[in-house]
């Protein structure tokens, strides 16, 4: 089933808007997030992705392990959260072996890689936001994220933005 099948199968007429809360930061779930986001954007949906908690890892400027953040503890976590390349899968991670295996399989079957999906999202102008609360805890600033991140938001603004469309929690 293609994304457009799922998105057009609802009987109710509603605005073509899709909002995704990207919380988990897992490799497999990020692939799902960006596949849905780009698939929807390609067929004319207005798409918003709200990155929070582990999800913030996917949109950091400094990809790779770096001591990002203010304060000792946030810096330690910043180091462990090494961006897209070190995202674990949500199950059977096998100490980091599984993402490597999945990346290899995806390349072999000519399926878009996570990095390609993120690039596609930027090109298709998917709106991306960072969660204010999570950023505050981890001592991050807007400048720590990729410049495509439109804004830093809280729950209230996110609910306003996602009003009338579909919201998914991944």
């Amino acid at each position, binding site marked *: 089933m293609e994304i457009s099948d799922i998105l057009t199968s609802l009987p109710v007429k509603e605005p073509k808007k899709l909002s995704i809360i990207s919380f988990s930061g897992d490799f497999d779930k990020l692939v799902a997030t960006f596949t849905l986001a780009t698939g929807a*954007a390609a*067929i*004319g949906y207005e798409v918003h992705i709200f990155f929070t908690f582990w999800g913030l890892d996917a949109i950091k400027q400094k990809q790779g392990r770096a001591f990002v953040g203010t304060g000792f503890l946030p810096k330690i976590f910043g180091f462990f959260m090494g961006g897209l390349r070190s995202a674990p899968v949500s199950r059977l991670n096998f100490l980091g072996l599984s993402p490597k295996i999945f990346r290899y399989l995806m390349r072999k079957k000519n399926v878009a890689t996570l990095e390609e999906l993120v690039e596609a999202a930027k*090109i298709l102008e998917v709106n991306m936001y960072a969660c204010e609360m999570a950023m505050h805890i981890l001592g991050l600033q807007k400048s720590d994220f990729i410049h495509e991140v439109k804004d830093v938001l809280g729950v209230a603004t996110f609910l306003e933005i996602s009003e009338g469309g579909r919201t998914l929690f991944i």
Partner: protein
Amino acid sequence: MTFVKTKIQLSKLQSGDILEVLLMEGEPLQNVPKSAREQGFKVLDVSHVEGQVHKVIIEK
């Protein structure tokens, strides 16, 4: 995903330019021409190349 890549390539073209898309039969073959038309592009031709590969010609 095929239509995502198609859409991205189309966005780089000028109006009136032609894009040739090679795709697999099944979901991509069913969805790319349909989505292209829905998005306002002109589908000039859909043809079988060989095996599971088909060609769709789209005009922006």
